[in-house]
């Protein structure tokens, strides 16, 4: 009876814990946004944000296929970040989950914390460079790179794939993030780097995560 009780509690409570752990709560408060030396970033300024939550990981192929059953992916790529989807599909996915795409300021705060970090883990580039001799993108399981963790514990905000946000600039949607596995340009992965992309584009290096 005791064991049955424990199993019952485990089966009932564990999925809730698991679901809850998929999002990270970012506390209300000020943070430094932008950078004055990077012409592709917003100018450096201090900003206050209310409390919000953001997905711990980028949305995976498997998760996306649950909402969009037609979504096909290579065998073994279920835990890879979903890509090749346009902004509207990303937004729809989040809405179906009772969420939304993060605003770019929310994304930036979740990535750099309140100490204005250049990279999610700090201010220095890692000594080890990924895939120096490969021109393309190598997708891997989300959260695999433990180093790529923000001050709030959010994963893959410098590496993995670029991510759609809900914000817009000059008629395009702002994407944030970066690709650590790009062979020539390691610098384009800073927490304040922004990359405007047309909302209809489907690109193999562009995925997303949701916020609430």
């Amino acid at each position: 009876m005791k064991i049955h009780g424990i199993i019952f509690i485990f089966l009932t409570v564990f999925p809730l814990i698991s679901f809850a752990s998929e999002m990270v709560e970012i506390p209300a408060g000020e943070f430094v946004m932008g950078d004055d030396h990077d012409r592709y970033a917003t100018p450096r300024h201090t900003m206050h944000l209310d409390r919000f939550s953001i997905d711990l990981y980028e949305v995976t192929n498997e998760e996306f296929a649950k909402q969009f059953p037609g979504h096909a992916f290579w065998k073994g790529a279920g835990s890879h970040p979903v890509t090749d989807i346009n902004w509207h599909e990303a937004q729809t996915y989040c809405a179906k989950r009772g969420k939304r795409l993060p605003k770019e300021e929310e994304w930036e705060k979740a990535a750099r914390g309140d100490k204005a970090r250049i990279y999610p883990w700090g201010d220095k580039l890692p000594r080890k460079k990924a895939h120096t001799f490969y021109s393309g993108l190598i997708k891997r399981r989300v959260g695999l790179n433990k180093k790529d963790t923000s001050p709030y514990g959010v994963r893959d905000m410098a590496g993995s794939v670029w991510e759609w946000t809900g914000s817009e600039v000059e008629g395009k949607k702002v994407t944030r993030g970066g690709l650590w596995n790009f062979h020539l340009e390691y610098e384009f992965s800073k927490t304040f780097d922004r990359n405007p992309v047309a909302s209809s584009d489907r690109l193999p290096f562009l995925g997303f995560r949701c916020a609430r």
Partner: protein
Amino acid sequence: MRTLEKLSRRLFLERGFWATATLLWSLLRGSTVAQELHSYEGTDFIGKTREGKYKFFYINFWKPLRRINGEAWRLKITGLCESPQSFTLEQIKSINPKTQSSRMKCVECWSARASWSGFAVRELEEIVKPLPGARGILFHCGDDYKEYLSRKDLNQDQVILAHSMNGHPLSDGHGFPLRLIAPSKYGYKNPKAILEMEYVSEHQAGTWSKIGPYSPDGTILPGTDHPLELGKEPRRISGGEITNY
């Protein structure tokens, strides 16, 4: 003393003769070498060069190739299609023409813009009718280069089979008589001097993806570009086709 004088004069004349002969020989030889370095004119071969007229738009070939004779050339369409057939250059030029300006981005950092004229792949597909199992096309080129693109990629709006560049037929260096222009992909996914297009059922690695560090997909990634005609000044690019300059 007199004998010495005579010997010196003879020696002087002898050495002068050989010096002049050597100088003339080296000048002649030098000019031949210079000609070989700067141009392939005068030979039947086209190959990799970054000299002279190509300084604003580099060309790269996998292997030097014999100059293609436009009259004898035929584009062969083979593999998984209902009507495999060959097209002459005149037939190719008569397919519903389309002109577009697009930038070619090389995986080696540089890029260059040109106006390209040709036709959409779907125009060709209406004639040869690919079978349902045809997933992509394997391009066979004059320099033994092979490249694969999926039909999904080939039927994007900005993808054309081009026979003209900047209002003129393609030069030998730029892939006469027919090349692919796929602006959202790195240059190595834009095969030149196409001889055959083979419809295939499976994804296949192209020449560079098979032996080099180049991704089979070849989509241009976000990063930095160095456009040749803009002084190679670094510019940030968003990934995919470069449309803003």
